[in-house]
């Protein structure tokens, strides 16, 4: 169902491309989080614009 709808809007290549990019982003986020968690002083600063 999801594939059908996305294909209708963006075409098959669009969906595969987005899935590929999505997987890359998830991999990069996971790697960064694992790398951060392994450090003695993990650091992930808050969004700059929070609480302005």
């Amino acid at each position, binding site marked *: *169902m*999801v594939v059908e*709808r*996305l294909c209708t*809007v963006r075409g098959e290549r669009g969906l595969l491309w*987005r899935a590929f990019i*999505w997987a890359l*982003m*998830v991999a*990069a*986020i996971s790697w*960064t*989080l694992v790398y951060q968690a392994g450090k003695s002083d993990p650091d*992930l*600063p*808050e*969004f*700059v*614009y*929070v*609480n*302005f």
Partner: protein
Amino acid sequence: MTPSLLDPRFILLLAVAALLRRFVPDRWLLPYGAAVSVVLMGLASPRTLLLLGGIALLVLYPLAQLLRRVRTRPAGDKTARFLLGAGVAFILVLWVAFKANRSFGLPFMSQSAIAQQFVAVFGFSYFMFKAINFLYIHYLADIPESNPLRVLYYVLFPSTITSGPIQKYSDFCKELAQARHVDSATAAHGVYRITKGYFFKICVAFGLKWASDSLLAVAQPNAYQAMALVVALYTFLYFDFAGYSHIAIGFGLLMGVKVTENFRQPFLATSMTEFWRNWHITVGDWFRDHVFIPQGGMRLGGLRAALLAGAIMFACGLWHGFTVMFVSWGLWHGANILLDGVLGVRPMPPAHRHGPRYWGRVLWTNTRVALGALFFLPTVSSIKPVLGGLLRWW
């Protein structure tokens, strides 16, 4: 727990609320959304819930009802204007109080254990924009407003409460009027936006922050290091805030609300005004609708309109914070908008967007904005070595 899109518990609760929404009957979607907002904010920051929810229900909603009644009376316009002015003044006074003193405490509970839960108020600056928009739209138009839950949901909408995007009340109501269950394609798009946002924040912005911190540590940077620092700071601000906006929009989609976009290729702007139409779009739109147009806008003529836009940027600097750095940032952007106005610089039409002249304009605009990003450094003294470095080519 804090209402931050980096707090795993808050993110988890948002995701659970979005999932459970699928099982809620259509007519209960509004109460469900309002209840989710209240519960999430109550768990994350009770003080924020009490303050923002209280103002929404005890000030904004009754004032909107009054404005509706007054508008229909003969010669009621003057009274409506007074009510609008009183409401806006009330919100602004509270905002100044919070801005001037972040630890604005409740005196009767300052020493109690529960006071720890009431330390921070999140998102008041963004709430201020929403509250004024809510009153202004009721002053301008006759909006049938019979459900206080809608107002509560509007001001406490969980994914946008801490940093926007600042959705207009009319747009929010349109979304609620088409209250619907989220289909699979929209849910997939929402998840994609959320992932993109976290990628921007956790991978790209984090790397740029590391790079700018490393370059800041250089005591006497040369021109290349100083330029790299300026670019790192500028792009860090973009990826940090655009990342936040992607996440907020993604969670909005999962909750059945299409949140207004906040960025539209700002790096391709050919003038400062065009830049501000594409960077933090919702705050630019807010100032245009609530200050620029009511004060005369483009009808004032080129130079006076540019002066007004410059003054608005100064106000925008104050909105960022009552510090020398942010006020200077506002003045810098205001002066550049004024300069563009004096020189008659206008955004280039789509047909002319190619070739060296176009890219030169893009580079000139981005250079000015990037230099302005230096005002996001903590102190004036941290800017001096960078400016010195920009002149050190040998």
